[in-house]
């Protein structure tokens, strides 16, 4: 316990509040800010319509947003590089269309068709990465042109009818499978135990090496908050249809990519390229390989999101992947604290952002807002988020000039 004092600077309540204020001002308290935002949005809509926070509606919110969250994971990776991919919506639509045609028109097994859709996404991402690194074309140009092309190909693939119904199979079961209450609780307990175990193991490792460690108290608080969130989640979904399979899928994906970005060499290099590409190059990092890999992963995740969207809709049509899907997938992570300028962000912002954006959209639908209002509100929220991000970025810059 003696090493605990080293890390925590002696601060009273005032110091803590001041530290919190500094973190908010410099955009380091991202998750906290987002949770406050979610709380505000939920309170507002709950007062307007008391069905908003009902288990049924919250479960629907999760199902609606799982596709967006999946696409957003890829967007986070690309934003970390300081690049943008405007084709994720179109790629998701095209991948889903190819999958649907393979299953329904060609009789391919659903599992194989999903794999084909993901492979197509990977191929498109590889192409994007190649164009961007080989010909030095800005990513927004390559992907904007790409998005037009892929929409065209999607119309071509879908052919005359324009809509393909998927029927009941592996694909639709992805979003229509719910676990019984006991399994939900088992998942929650497992998640809490693993969170606590990994935090404790990491702390013990640091302590054994004589490095400063965070106080046991804050570890308990953090585990407690995460545990409470899991318990609340399971409590809510169990009152409705149960824990949705797709929520577990999205969670596993975010967990995997959070691990890759924060704890592996590849992830470290992604941050380095986004922070200072020239420095990364001089440090011997093959920055073009990193870029190509990230664009490949981004489009693959977009394709995965397309599969989930098709699963939820139980069909693929000409407007799959269009409308505001692209905007939501990019706006979500940005609202949740991933920088548009590269080098800052986390895979978790994909989920958080999807919840924020989804809550606004879902709430406005419940209140039967006109679509004019919905567009204006969503646009205003995005502008506000980007402005906050820009201002905090300028503040951070300001602290360097000492």
């Amino acid at each position: 316990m003696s090493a605990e004092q080293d890390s925590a600077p002696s601060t009273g309540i005032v110091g803590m509040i001041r530290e919190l204020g500094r973190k908010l001002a410099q955009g380091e308290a991202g998750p906290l800010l987002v949770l406050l935002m979610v709380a505000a949005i939920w309170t507002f809509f709950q007062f307007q319509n008391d069905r908003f926070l009902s288990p049924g509606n919250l479960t629907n919110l999760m199902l609606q947003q799982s596709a967006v969250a999946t696409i957003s994971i890829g967007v986070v990776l690309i934003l970390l590089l300081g690049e943008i991919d405007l084709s994720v919506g179109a790629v998701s639509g095209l991948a889903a269309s190819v999958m649907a045609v393979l299953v329904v028109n060609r009789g391919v097994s659903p599992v194989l068709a999903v794999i084909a859709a993901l492979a197509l996404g990977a191929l498109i991402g590889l192409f994007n990465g190649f164009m961007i690194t080989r010909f030095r074309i800005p990513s927004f140009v390559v992907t904007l042109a790409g998005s037009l092309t892929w929409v065209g190909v999607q119309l071509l693939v879908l052919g005359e009818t324009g809509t393909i119904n998927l029927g009941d199979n592996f694909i639709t079961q992805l979003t229509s499978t719910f676990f019984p209450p006991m399994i939900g609780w088992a998942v929650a307990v497992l998640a809490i135990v693993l969170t606590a175990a990994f935090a404790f193991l990491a702390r013990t490792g640091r302590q054994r090496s004589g490095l400063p460690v965070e106080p046991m108290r804050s570890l308990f608080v953090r585990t407690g908050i995460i545990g409470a969130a899991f318990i609340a989640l399971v409590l809510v979904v169990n009152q409705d249809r149960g824990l949705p399979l797709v929520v577990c899928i999205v969670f596993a994906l975010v967990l995997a990519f959070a691990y890759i970005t924060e704890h592996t060499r590849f992830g470290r290099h992604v941050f380095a390229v986004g922070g200072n590409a020239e420095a990364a190059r001089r440090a011997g990092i093959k920055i073009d390989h990193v870029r190509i890999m990230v664009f490949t992963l981004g489009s693959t995740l977009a394709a995965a999101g397309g599969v989930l969207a098709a699963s939820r809709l139980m069909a693929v049509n000409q407007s799959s992947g269009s409308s505001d899907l692209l905007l939501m997938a990019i706006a979500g992570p940005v609202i949740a604290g991933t920088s548009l300028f590269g080098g800052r962000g986390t895979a978790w912002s994909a989920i958080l952002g999807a919840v924020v954006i989804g809550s606004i959209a879902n709430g406005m639908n419940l209140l039967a807002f006109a679509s004019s209002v919905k567009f204006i509100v969503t646009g205003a929220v995005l502008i506000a988020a980007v402005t906050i991000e820009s201002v905090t970025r300028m503040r951070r810059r300001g602290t360097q000039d000492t």
Partner: protein
Amino acid sequence: MSATGSESYLLSLKGVSKAFGANQALSGVDFEVGAGEVVALVGDNGAGKSTLVKAIAGVQLCDEGEFHFKGKPVRISSPQDATALGIATVYQDLALCDNLDVVANLYLGREVFSNGAARGAFLIDETTMEQSSLKLLQALAVTTIHDVRVHVGSLSGGQRQAVAIARSLLGEPSVVLLDEPTAALGVSQTEQVLSLIGTLRDRGLGVVVISHNLENVFAVADRIIVLRLGKRSATFDVRGVSREDVVAAITGAEFGVRPAAAKEDA
């Protein structure tokens, strides 16, 4: 005046020339740095300082010239060659990632993997990296960085310079080139960096400092090599030379009073 044989120096260059089109950036320049010695390379803008340093760092090849490293003739035709020999360069822009912490910057591009099962998951061994980062900074007597987990973007100019220098030492070099290490630093920060350069010398490294600031040069250097119009115009032992002598050698002006001051080599 410094007629010692090249074998006693860590790194010595003979007759280095480089032309950019019609512009002769360097013509027949000799240069040498010994172990445990700080050599300041000074000269006006366009005197050829950066060209010379780029040639040593392998960034830009020179047209002609002989390189000797630890007494053996060598060729430096790429930055990798220079690094492999043990020549590290810290550029003026430092090449740090502001969005990463001190540990991540020190180990950028050479991250350490964990052992055992975690190796299969490509897990970076943060504990080992943090430990050796602390050790390295301690060995360099960098006392201003307490927390190696802060983002480099939030450090002061002097601290950033210290991180950049510390990083260059991870490859165990024997010669370190520092490009304008004190430019744009405040008084106390400059002090920190100068004392760090002193630490490098005490560790037996050959240090080459390019600087415009003669006050700093006098504070830290053992020898001063003056370049003027692509030629080595003078060499001074820092003891027993005045600022005016060096300025006169840099500008080439006869600065009035002291005609015998600048000893022209070239």
